[in-house]
Structures are given as C-alpha cells and as structure tokens.
C-alpha cells in the first residue's frame, strides 16, 4: 500500500487508515528503534518507543507533506529512539561506548574491531546453519530479546516447545562452534 492509498483510506476511515499505515511502516520503525536501543533496552522498551512514534505520526499526520511520509516517520523514529536510548542509559547508569556514539573520536583498535566483525559474521552463519525454525527462535530470543510466548506466536509453536527448541539449538550451536572454533567464542 503506497502513501496515497493510505491517505485515501484515512479520509474514509481514520482508524483503518492508521492501522494500515502502522502495518506498512512497523518494520521500518521497529528496525530503526531496535538498532538504536538494542544494547540497553528490552523488547518492551522498543514496543513502547514504537507506539510513541506512531502516536506522534498520527497526531501530526495532517501536517505531513505529500510524498514525505516515510522520511517524516524515519526522522521521528530516529529522534525518539535516540531519546529513549539516552533515558535508558541514564536509568542504568550505563556509559555509552564509542560504537554507539561514533562522532566521539576515540582510539580505535582496528584489529579488535576486525575480529569482532568476523566473530559476529561467523556466529551468524552458524545460527543460520541451524535451520528453521531454530535460527528464527535464536534470533528472536537473543537478538530481538523477545519472550518465548511472543516467539511462539510468530513461529506457530507452543511456548514450551520454543523454550525446549531454543535450549537444544544453543547446544547444537555450541557444538558447531567447538568444532569450528572462532576467536572470542568463549562467552557462549
């Protein structure tokens, strides 16, 4: 559904229109938010943030120029996510490292950075090698921090099955990693 269709739908029925707008952009917004707050926030924080962003978009919808809806949503999402990140870091007393604030110059350990990248790249490949639905479960659980009950809904399994599968998948992953050791892989 494109922007014009959404606008027309909102004219007909506001709630339906906003629902469609939400469905159309929820991925985009959630990705922006989670990318910013994932190191500190929980899935609930992200959802709260997403709901704030869309409420803001709905309120100012009439003021958004035609053709700039996505850009507007993106800007609001970034700002709100940064604000949420700051609030979370203030709450936890966490001091952000240079990765999260790239504008702040710092000594960069190129070798360490490279190793990190390689490590996560290989780790991700190992997770993918687990196959579905295990890789989805692992990603949703350990990347998106979602609860087993929520994961169960999205993969169409029972929560208990999700928990069991996650535990087994982790075991398998551990085995894969021990067979093909990668640096910095000792924290599993």
């Amino acid at each position, binding site marked *: 559904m494109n922007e014009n269709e959404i606008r027309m739908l909102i004219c007909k029925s506001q*709630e339906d229109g*906003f*629902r469609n707008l*939400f*469905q159309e952009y*929820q*991925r985009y917004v*959630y*990705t922006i938010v*989670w*990318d910013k707050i*994932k*190191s*500190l926030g*929980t899935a*609930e924080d992200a*959802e*709260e943030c*997403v*709901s*704030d*962003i*869309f*409420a803001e978009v*709905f*309120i100012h919808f009439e003021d958004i120029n035609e053709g700039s809806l996505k850009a507007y949503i993106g800007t609001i999402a970034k*700002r709100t996510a940064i*604000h949420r990140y*700051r*609030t*979370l870091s*203030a*709450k*936890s*007393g*966490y001091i952000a490292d240079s990765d999260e604030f790239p504008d702040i110059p710092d000594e960069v350990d190129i070798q360490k*950075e490279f190793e*990190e*990248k390689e490590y*996560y*790249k290989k*780790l*991700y490949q190992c997770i*993918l090698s687990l196959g579905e639905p295990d890789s*989805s479960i692992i*990603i*949703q659980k*350990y*990347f*998106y*921090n*979602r609860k087993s009950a*929520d994961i169960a*809904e*999205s993969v169409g399994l029972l929560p208990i099955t999700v928990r069991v599968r996650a535990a087994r998948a*982790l075991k398998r992953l551990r085995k894969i990693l021990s067979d093909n050791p990668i640096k910095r892989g000792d*924290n*599993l």
Partner: protein
Amino acid sequence: MKSKRFSLNNADKATSEQIFKDFPTDWDMSKTFHKSYKKYLSAMKTCENISDETAAESMSVEVLQPKRSIIGFVFKIVPIVGCTALFVFMFKGMFFSDNGNDDTPDTVDKPPVVSEADRSNSAETKVSASTTELISSTTETKSTETQTAKTTDKKATDTTANPTETVKTEITAETTQVTEPENEETVAVTEPPQETENNIPETTQTVPTTEPSLPNEENKTVAFEELLAMADDELMKYCEDNSYSFTSQEQIRNELKSGGKFFIRIKPEQYLIDGIDDICVSENISDIKQYNAHEYDFDKMIAELNLPEKYFTVNVDSTPFMVCSELQFYENGDIKPYFLKLANLSVNVNPEYAESEELYRLYQLINILPQINSNFHSISVQYGGR
C-alpha cells in the same frame, strides 16, 4: 541491565543489518498499534475539549448579543407576557366555569350569568372566533397589550358558554401559537427565562475534565499481599492494565547477580517544605542545588512510595539528589536539553527475606509500586560505588 548470557545485541553494524534484512520484525504488533491509537485519541480529545470550550464561549457571546438590544428584548417579552396573561385568564375562566354553580366559594368572583339560549348559540361560534383572534394576534407577533386584553376579555365571557369545549380549543390554539410558525417566537419563549442559566451549563460542560483513571483506582484496591501472591503472568497483566513497566524475575536475578542496587527517582517539587522555593527544572545545570535535603520532606516522600516497611528499607543517601538531563523536542525540529532535579532513594529488601522464595517478587514490586506515585520518575539500578 542486560544479561551477560549469550547475546547478539552487540553484534557489529553489518551483521545487525543482515539480521534485520533476513529476519524482519514483521510479527503481530496490533497491541502496539492500539497503544499508539489510544495515545492519539487522548491527545485529540484534549484538543477537542479546548476547541469546544472556545466554541462554547463564542456561542455564549452570540446568545448574549440579542439581549443587548432593548427593542428586541421588548418584542420578545411582550408576546410571552401576553401569553402568560392569556393563560392565567383562561384558567381563571375554566375555574369559574367549573364552579359556576351555587357551590362557588365566596372568595371567588362569580362568573357572569349567561342565559341558556346564549350558551347554545355561542358555544362553537364564539369559541372559534376567539381562538382565531388569538392566533392572529399572536402569530403576527405585534400583539399589543390592548389586543391581548381584548381577546382575553372576550374569552372571559366566552368560556362560560361551553366550558369543556372552549378549554380544549383554546389550549390547542395556544400551543399552536407558541410552537407554530415563528421560530422567533419559540426562541423568545425559551430564551429569556434561561438568560442566566443557559450560558453557565454550556461552558461548564465543555471544560475539559481530567477523569480519574480507572486503573489507578484499582491499584488502591489491590493489596500488597495480593501482589506478592500473584503469579508472574498475573502481575504482568496487572502492570499492562495499569500501564506500569514490568520487570521480569529473570532480569531482577541478573541485576542482583551483578551487584546492582535499586534506586527510586522521584520528582521532589511536591515535597518541598512549605514556604521554601527551589528550582527543580532548568536549562542551566548550575541553577539546581543538590545539597538542600533539609528543605524537603523526605519522610512524606518515603511514605508515599507504597513500600511496606515490613519488607523494604528505603534510605536517603548522603547525596539525596541527582540531576538528570532530558531533551526537549520542538515541532520545528529543534532539540534542547534541560536538567531535572530528582530525589534518589535507595531501596533494599529487608535481609530476613534474602532466602525467601518471594525475594525476586519483592524486588519486582520495588519496580512497580512506586509507579503509583504521580511524582515517580524512574527506577535505576546502579552497579558498584555508592
């Protein structure tokens, strides 16, 4: 705050992007949509209340406008006076006709005596004459006092002819007179008596009211012991229903394992001792004093945290305040930081519950119960130091 277990949250940018691409976040977020839409509606409701209020103000001005003209007022009031007089006379006539016998009390004037023949003749004709005259006099709206006097005089005599019939016809005549064609007249009838009353309720109705939210009332009814006994799911639902943030036992366990200490941050303005002023929000951090705890009623603050002494110890540290910076986003895209003074109260579960099964639940409640307090700002978990 985060678990030290296996986590992909700190994955490098390229991997994160790849994950976002391969595993998009397209699960069902209808709950989140409802939250957004609810927020939107409540924001709109506030706006509508404000616009209704202004509309009511402008309406009341319009209603007041004609009353400023004396001529208009006279034109409106005269027919009403006429009608009222007519009504009185009509009922008087009815009264006379009902009691037009020997039993009529002395205090009431006797009606004019009319012969039997007259009665039979005048029964319908006179009545219709009087009613048409009535209609004409009133519908023209220019009914002067003399005209109404005439008609009422006539009626006074005519009513004696056939009491029941005249009463009926005259009442219908009068009702048509009031409600029939002239909107002006109906306005005239309805407006003046409400001159003062009409405006007041309209404005009072549109004043935005802050309805007490149901969940907060529910909170008061949920006893601490009940919260303590709730299953985790129930507690989570309770938090959802009341829009409180919920902390899972797993999170609490990790925080405690990492040596986290719980601090409740409260906006202190409401607890200033009477007669003392203090700056609690400012764009300039140097405006905010951090060592004036003696100017605040910390006992009241602790009491309002809703944390029973049996289970919790709340302490005011040597540095009872902290300053937190927040960002203000303006519609034009500007962002400005401002500083907020917050009371920082450390909370611990009493040591006797350290081995108890309820320990994590008690820590969960540290995160939930203070949220009932309207001055609550946030909970922080601090590691090491302090």
